[in-house]
């Protein structure tokens, strides 16, 4: 049997040398290329069994090589090597048909393992390569998902695959609150073929039922008291884009049934109307509840759940991907430095250790809030650990701080009002051990209004139940 030939492409001679060593021991023959042009040439002339390629190279980069390989019908399996396992690279690599990707720093065992797996796969057959549509993915930075953890890499891969399919396939995103479900939905949308059409998000807890119904389905002129002119529903507004239904677990039985019909028929009628309107948008639904339990307990229709759950994406809670915390913390630091015109340089060692050890019942959103507040209050270059101690304590303490943080009156008022609402809700929930009805009664609010306040601030009852 002839020896397997591996092509390694990198502009760094040290990396090439390291790969050579690993592969010599493993019994493969190694050829190398220093840039994308040379790589393409060697792929077509030498026909390597597998290619390991750095993504960032001068002139022709790794993704460009993948693209050109497709154009020239070259089919060697490619393992992409990247410095950062960023979402965009991962999604693009999968869309362009990369076999696998490796993140730096490189781990010898991992290299060997991937090489073996890739070769085993390649030896099976070469005519059987997955067909993946190539897509243009212009990405808006503010919707970036962040994290290099394996859990997130799996998420990126699923986004990459699902975004290449047409709108017929619904997606269900499952994850605790604050894990970034809407970001995933937006990312699927912006990487899809219909990114130019609208992305319409609607939070199913944000409206009372009747209003939600007319928001979703629209209504004709005079359909009910107070219905003025004809109004288009969100399904229509989304056209061939995406309709994102957040907190779907809260949908009433009546709306569940209507939604099921839309999914089955891909048609709807406006309230008070007779014309059938075609629904072209992709459905993405999300819930932070234990969806299976809801189905088993009969609160959520099983047939609707089946329809929505064609592709499921599980978002891991932040406490299960602690290695991503420093990256996220720095990202939010620079975001709020910009927004608040501050120039905080970083975190003290203790502060970072605290951030890594905290459990984040509110996930990434809670981390973001913690850092927003820390940047706001920061006096020096470095954020000390006690800011975070204070933040977590204020949730339980009755005293309020009114720092005058923003020059604009309305902005300050909004900021303080938000703090007040959050604290008010959290305090009541603490007092009533997470019993929402009791907390609402004590505040003389309706349960519905109280819950709306909770979801506005992404507060959940569960952490308060002890």
């Amino acid at each position, binding site marked *: 049997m002839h020896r397997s030939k591996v092509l390694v492409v990198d502009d760094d001679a040290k990396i090439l040398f390291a790969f050579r060593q690993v592969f010599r021991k493993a019994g493969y023959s190694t050829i190398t290329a220093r840039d994308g042009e040379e790589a393409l040439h060697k792929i077509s002339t030498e026909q390597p069994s597998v290619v390991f390629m750095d993504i960032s190279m001068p002139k022709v980069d790794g993704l460009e090589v993948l693209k050109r390989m497709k154009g020239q019908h070259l089919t060697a399996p490619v393992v992409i090597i990247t410095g950062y396992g960023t979402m965009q690279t991962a999604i693009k690599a999968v869309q362009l048909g990369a076999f696998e990707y490796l993140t730096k720093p490189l781990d010898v065992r991992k290299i060997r393992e991937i090489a073996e797996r890739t070769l085993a796969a390649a030896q099976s*057959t070469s005519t059987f390569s997955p067909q993946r549509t190539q897509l243009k993915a212009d990405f808006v930075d503010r919707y970036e998902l962040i994290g290099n953890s394996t859990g997130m890499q799996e998420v990126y891969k699923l986004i990459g695959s699902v975004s290449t*399919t047409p709108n017929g396939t619904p997606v269900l995103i499952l994850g605790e609150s604050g894990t970034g479900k809407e970001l995933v939905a937006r990312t699927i949308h912006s990487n899809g073929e219909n990114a130019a059409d609208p992305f319409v998000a609607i939070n199913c807890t944000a409206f009372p039922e009747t209003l939600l119904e007319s928001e979703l389905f629209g209504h004709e002129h005079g359909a009910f008291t107070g219905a003025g002119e004809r109004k288009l529903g969100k399904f229509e507004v989304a056209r061939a884009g995406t309709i994102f239904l957040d907190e779907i677990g809260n949908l009433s039985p009546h709306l569940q049934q209507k939604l099921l019909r839309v999914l089955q028929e891909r048609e709807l009628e406006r309230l008070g109307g007779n014309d059938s309107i075609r629904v072209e948008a992709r459905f993405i639904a999300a819930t932070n509840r234990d969806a299976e339990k809801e189905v088993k307990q009969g609160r959520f229709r099983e047939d609707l759940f089946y329809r929505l759950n064609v592709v499921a994406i599980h978002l891991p809670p932040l406490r299960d991907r602690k290695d991503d915390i420093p990256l996220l913390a720095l990202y939010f630091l620079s975001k709020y430095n910009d927004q608040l015109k501050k120039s905080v340089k970083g975190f003290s060692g203790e502060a970072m250790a605290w951030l890594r050890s905290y459990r984040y019942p509110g996930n990434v959103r809670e981390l973001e809030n913690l850092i927003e507040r820390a940047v706001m209050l920061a006096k020096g270059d470095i954020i000390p650990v006690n800011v975070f101690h204070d933040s977590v304590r204020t949730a339980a303490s009755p005293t309020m701080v009114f720092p005058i943080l923003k020059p604009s009156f309305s902005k300050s008022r909004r900021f303080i009002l938000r703090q007040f609402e959050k604290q008010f809700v959290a305090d009541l929930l603490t007092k009533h051990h997470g019993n929402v009805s009791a907390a609402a009664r004590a505040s003389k609010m309706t349960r519905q209004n109280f819950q709306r306040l909770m979801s506005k601030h992404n507060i959940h009852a569960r952490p308060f139940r002890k």
Partner: protein
Amino acid sequence: MVVDDDENILSAFEDFLRKENCQMVAETHVEEAFARFAEQRIDLLITDIRVRLHSGITLLLQVRAAYPYVPIIVITGHPDIITEKDVIKYGADFYFLKPLELDKLRFALKKCLRMTTK
């Protein structure tokens, strides 16, 4: 590997695959199936679209991303949930409706296994 929550289907597959000289790993949960996939050397995946409350399409996507060359057959009793075109686009090699026709299945099996052993 065959993934289905219906014991009757699993045992029917077991008989069928034994006659075709294949070893079968049965799984009744999607998530466990993907975990086991990594441990075992699987030459072919056969999955239902619905496995309990989970989606076989997610499994299809995950396996396709991690093992581009493993052939996949998707079966379903609910053809209206996803179109054949989409299932194929997601990387499945064959898509069959229940009740399964053994002749078609045998043809697909032969074709799939030829792909992996060639």
